[in-house]
């Protein structure tokens, strides 16, 4: 068994004519929390969809647990996905089911376990995210942070080998933010998972991750451990980590000359 759970080699992806990712090489070792960072629209979520097999690479390969995701047939892909969990940005809980039923969903779909055993498992997973007391609530009654924790409990229901988090910190208050970061680290360590976190929250993620990849305009521009990243002098990474308004990523969207557009050029 290879030490690398996720391995991406020379990956490129384009939507019809727009190139989103180009020449990506990325590795996630078993037991690691790996962050993929970059500003909005840089192709982070696309990368996650490629790993999950929802998109097929235009060029290059994605291996998860030794299997090339793009080459799997439908049944093979679904078999692989049973061993992956994904946490969507806003949880994507099923709104017509209670918290309990949401967490029980995969157990009921994929196993023939008796209802008593499902109940024990659901309560264990909910307890792990601190929401055993919320089992009877409906998703509409949860706060954003709680919904994401329930979604996390749902994602770990079948004890996956890999969990992918899409912006787990977006829009959370400082307390929920700390809780979410802590949970990702703790679950990865205690359940022996591998976690891939797509995020643009630098400070929170640098606290918990083992390795960071920076993506800008579809290309990996920097990578390293949190210490390397904090110390990096690369202009893009520096701007990102310190949240500077202007730098390699300009404040202004490309536009024609301001004075000219206001009709002041010849005044």
């Amino acid at each position: 068994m290879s030490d690398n759970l996720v391995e991406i080699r020379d990956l490129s992806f384009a939507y019809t004519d727009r190139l989103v990712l180009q020449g990506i090489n990325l590795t996630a070792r078993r037991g690691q929390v790996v962050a993929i960072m970059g500003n909005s629209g840089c192709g982070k979520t696309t990368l996650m969809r490629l790993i999950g097999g929802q998109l097929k690479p235009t060029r290059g390969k994605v291996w998860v647990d030794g299997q090339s995701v793009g080459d799997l047939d439908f049944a093979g892909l679904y078999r692989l996905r049973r061993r992956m969990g994904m946490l969507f940005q806003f949880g994507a809980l099923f709104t017509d089911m209670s918290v309990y039923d949401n967490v029980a969903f995969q157990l009921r779909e994929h196993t023939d376990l008796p209802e008593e055993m499902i109940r024990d498992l659901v309560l264990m997973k909910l307890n792990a995210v601190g929401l055993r007391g919320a089992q009877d609530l409906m998703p509409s009654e949860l706060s954003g942070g709680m919904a994401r924790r329930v979604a996390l409990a749902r994602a770990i229901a079948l004890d996956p080998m890999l969990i992918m988090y899409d912006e787990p910190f977006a829009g959370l208050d400082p307390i929920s933010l700390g809780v979410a970061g802590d949970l990702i680290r703790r679950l990865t360590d205690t359940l022996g998972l591998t976690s891939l976190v797509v995020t643009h929250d630098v400070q929170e993620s640098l606290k918990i991750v083992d390795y960071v990849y920076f993506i800008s305009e579809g290309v990996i521009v920097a990578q390293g451990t949190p210490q390397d990243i904090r110390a990096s002098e690369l202009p893009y990474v520096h701007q990102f980590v310190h949240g500077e308004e202007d730098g390699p990523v300009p404040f202004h969207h490309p536009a024609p000359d301001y004075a000219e557009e206001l009709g002041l050029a010849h005044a």
Partner: protein
Amino acid sequence: MPETLLAPLRRLGGRVVHSVWRLGLATRFFFLTLLYSGTCVRRPHLVVKEIFSAGVLSLIIILVSGLFVGMVLGLQGYETLQTYGSEEALGILVALSLVRELGPVVAALLFASRAGSAMTAEIGLMKATEQISALEMMAVDPIARVVAPRFWGGVISMPLLAALFSAMGIFGGYLVGVVLIGVDEGAFWSQMQAAVDFRDDILNGVIKSVVFGVVVTVIALYEGYDAPPTAEGVSRATTRTVVSSSLAILAWDFVLTSFMFRGV
């Protein structure tokens, strides 16, 4: 040819190609739904849940509309029939119009606006909130788990609703014709019994309502599944469901009627 002439032609061509393309996709979607219906057989409670939301929750509007349509038929029918002195035939008129035409067609139109639009909005929002993506990532096929149970729920509910619509309509006709106006009760029921044929009238009506059920639910589910995942996209898809399924019901009704009743 000048550009002013070419541009509208190009737009028209584009629209036609787009429509044919969507029709093809919807057909493929329909066959995929049939192909992935195995889950519904193995887990019938999924379909029962959808029969409740598409069928049982549409009961009020179907029953009330049926009653009023029947009462209006009773009034209008009596007006016309008494000119020829044949008001005893009121039962036949009410029953045949309902069982052959109004029951399946009006019930389907109501079903499209009540249950079809709800299906589109629900699936469109599931897509917008990434629930459909979440299903795929959990290795659960959304067509098998979400679409197929709704399809069968709709297809099973539709003929039952049409039958209830017709039954309520006949009762409405009876209320107005017999109870209110005083047409002979024996003549009303016995003429109806003699004239309404099980195969030619009732069975054909049921066939129509099954076809309408398939048409409405496929359009509603496809529009929801195909909706752009935004508020505007879902709202447009919901409107399109009601408009396209209403037109499709009327077109199919003409086609089916011309095959079924050509000898009459």
